[in-house]
């Protein structure tokens, strides 16, 4: 007979006690908003590959999710841990929704906040915080993903005088929010190294066709950016970013969110699975009563809880201002890899039901394939950790 007093995986770990009251309140608001505005539609958005991103952005902005951990310019200025916990809830809904928020806040808004001029910040950040304006972040190119330094997109100066215009040409690939963006943060090679540019998407020569046929992140817009001699004023350049450290600083922010986010997908899979195995009768008893099932559940719970402890620890380091990029790699590598493993294992327990959009497990697993690849592939993070341990850079 089943004991009615069961615990959830994270209750078992007692992680709630590690989260302070304000961060919990923020997390609860995100959860409440998603329950009414997002969760009821997810299966349909994923199935159709269509997500009403504009309306959704306004809803996310109203709550304060967009650029939430930035200070000023209409942003809420929360702790980094609160940002992580918000990502966790968002990704428990769908990685695509979390991607929308990550790209807007940690890539596009962060780039402007950290590297932009005062004018850039005033022009874009308040409207991006409310969700009225959407941003995207163009670094990856068709032939340059893990090694962005090789990028071919080039920004040429039209004259030699100070204040001369720029002309950008090239192609960016796999750009989240590309087709719906009002402003694109585009990284381009110049005679002076890699620089960042703010490209209003209505500038002549700019187009952003959506990428079709995705089997992952279907509830997210992914696009190609085509820059065909896009002419921009001198003021379009982000003045403070020079070299690859500019875009890498932004990626570091987004990766931090993913450390928490991926666990959200895993938690959702595990919760759904625990409920499923309790009710699925096989050979006259519930699937949850079999030892093989319990071994799977125990192992998955361990990885979820360990990942959560790691995420909260890294969150504390970030709030203290001491988090290093190679530590972000530890979290991203572990938590995405383990969350994907959990999603796949959960799928086995749901049997055939697990392959449909009626249950979230394969949707999460498919989404996590993208999460494993973007923001630094697992292999790239292994190389970062390897270099930290050995002092040997093995990237090339």
């Amino acid at each position, binding site marked *: 007979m089943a004991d009615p007093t069961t615990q959830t995986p994270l209750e078992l770990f007692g992680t709630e006690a590690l989260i302070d009251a304000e961060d919990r*309140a923020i997390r609860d608001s995100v959860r409440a908003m998603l329950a009414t505005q997002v969760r009821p539609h997810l299966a349909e958005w994923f199935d159709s590959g269509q997500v009403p991103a504009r309306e959704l952005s306004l809803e996310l902005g109203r709550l304060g999710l967009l650029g939430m951990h930035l200070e000023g310019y209409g942003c809420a200025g*929360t702790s980094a841990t609160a940002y992580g916990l918000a990502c966790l809830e968002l990704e428990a809904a769908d990685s695509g929704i979390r991607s929308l928020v990550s790209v807007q806040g940690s890539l596009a808004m962060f780039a402007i906040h950290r590297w932009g001029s005062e004018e850039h910040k005033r022009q874009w950040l308040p409207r991006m915080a409310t969700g009225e304006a959407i941003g995207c972040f163009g670094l990856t190119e068709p032939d340059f993903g893990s090694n962005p330094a090789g990028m071919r997109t080039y920004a040429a100066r039209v004259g030699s005088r100070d204040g001369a215009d720029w002309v950008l040409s090239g192609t960016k690939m796999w750009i989240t929010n590309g087709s719906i963006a009002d402003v694109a943060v585009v990284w381009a090679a110049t005679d002076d190294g890699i620089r960042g540019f703010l490209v209003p998407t209505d500038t002549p020569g700019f187009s952003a066709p959506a990428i079709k046929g995705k089997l992952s992140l279907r509830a997210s817009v992914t696009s190609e950016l085509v820059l065909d001699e896009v002419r921009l004023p001198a003021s379009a350049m982000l003045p403070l970013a020079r070299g690859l450290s500019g875009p890498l600083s932004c990626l570091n922010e987004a990766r931090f969110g993913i450390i928490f986010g991926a666990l959200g997908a895993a938690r959702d899979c595990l919760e759904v699975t625990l409920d499923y195995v309790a009710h699925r009768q096989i050979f006259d008893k519930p699937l949850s009563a079999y030892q093989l099932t319990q071994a799977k559940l125990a192992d998955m719970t361990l990885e979820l809880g360990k990942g959560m402890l790691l995420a909260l620890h890294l969150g504390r380091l970030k709030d203290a201002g001491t988090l290093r990029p190679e530590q972000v790699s530890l979290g991203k590598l572990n938590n995405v890899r383990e969350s994907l493993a959990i999603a796949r294992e959960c799928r086995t327990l749901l049997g055939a039901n697990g392959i449909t959009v009626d249950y979230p497990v394969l949707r999460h697993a498919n989404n996590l394939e993208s999460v494993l690849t973007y923001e630094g592939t697992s292999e790239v993070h292994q190389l970062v950790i390897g270099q930290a341990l050995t002092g040997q850079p093995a990237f090339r």
Partner: protein
Amino acid sequence: MNIVVCVKYVPDTQAERTFNASDNTTDRVNVDGLLSELDEYAVEEALKIVEAGEGVVTVVTVGPAQASDALKKALQMGADKAVHVIDDAIHGSDALATSLVLAKAIEKVGMPDLVLTGMSSTDGIMGVVPTMLAERLGLPAVTFASDLTVGADSVTARRDGDAASQTIEAALPALVSVTDQINEPRYPSFKGIMAAKKKPVETWGLADLGLSADEVGLDAAWTKVTAFEARPPRQQGTIVKDEGDGGGKLASFLAERKFI
């Protein structure tokens, strides 16, 4: 328009709720508590009224130390300030005493134009405090409002009954209790959550309100819980195996219990 909203900290309806064995009062300490859901509608309505014009929303609660969580939630939603009446002597108070303490607290805040409450608490579920409070404050009581319009010196409320809806008008100042049909309470925005930390919360004891311990609490209560016992666990439902006669078995099951 100055509005006072009375809010209650109640045990989470999802949690395992119990009584204190020593005095048969509701256990509010060893259980997760929160702002009574039914009071969220009153807070939301107050915020909407003030946002459409101007004014100050003050939330008032009477309760133990943990009740500050209910105030915090209301401040996060957007209320401007809060009053927490806390005193060991209040423990075990009935609705009469609660309405007395609330009335004194509201007088001390300064008589508002409008007092809003939920239609009842989710723990006691009596729904009598609003009328008692209106009586003590000498205000017209408009209860169970499912729609509310506030004018310069009056309020108009719709009260939905089983057979008909009444439209009621009352002069301001007034007390209005609202139902869960009146609006959709907001969840606190991040800015609201961050701002709540800096909002003023006053803490008053009985002495601050000019009340003495013998006017409130379990000993002064007109009603007492004399005994309680846990509800027996729910029996397993009957499963009817269909061996060609399933329909008949179902029908006789229903007929036995006089459902058909």
